């Protein structure tokens, strides 16, 4: 299946575009999506480990299985602040 992943902030700038498309096997987990993304977008690797993945606007566990036509986004760490 083909999934579009939305990127924000530094992730968007490192990839040079606000969306990346990935070809993924059916029954693909969020963990595998992370691996494919790192392969296809080496510039994202450094930030990727610190990012969350959102599926349908909800933080997703690495074990979650993805389905076609879900909304997937990479969520870099938010500013936190004091």
């Amino acid at each position, binding site marked *: 299946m083909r999934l579009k992943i939305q990127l924000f*902030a530094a992730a968007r700038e490192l990839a040079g575009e606000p969306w990346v498309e990935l070809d993924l096997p059916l029954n693909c987990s969020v963990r595998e999506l992370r691996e494919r993304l790192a392969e296809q977008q080496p510039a994202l690797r450094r*930030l990727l480990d610190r990012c969350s993945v959102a599926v349908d606007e909800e933080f997703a566990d690495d074990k979650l299985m993805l389905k076609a036509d879900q*909304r997937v*986004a990479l969520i870099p*760490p*938010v*500013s*936190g*602040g004091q």
Partner: protein
Amino acid sequence: MIRLQTEAIDFAALTESVRSPQAGAVVLFLGTVRELTEGRRTAHLKYEAYPAMAEKKLAEIERETRERWPVIEMGIVHRTGRLELGEVSVAVAVSCPHRAEAFEACRHAMDQVKILAPIWKQENWADGTAEWVHPGS
């Protein structure tokens, strides 16, 4: 009440919107654009959000805060886009029967915004460089 907006935040109107005859306390928190961070001078900030998810998370924060404190009314407004020094980037207003719970509820909601809402800050330094604030690097 939850909102993301590019226009300046009318925090007087937000405060007024949470006032109620049932409340004995109204607390307003404002996050504002600070000039100095560890000695470095900020020229301006940019905020970028994932709007659909940010609005969902802000609504969840409101719901969870209402479950834990006797909130009468509350509102969370966050700006996106470019902000100049001193401008208000985020406002949280809470009314409760008593002040201790109003302070706690407001602080809790604001802390959760900083943890859960997918809204990112880009420092645009006075020296012309810019960097996204992604803690943990």
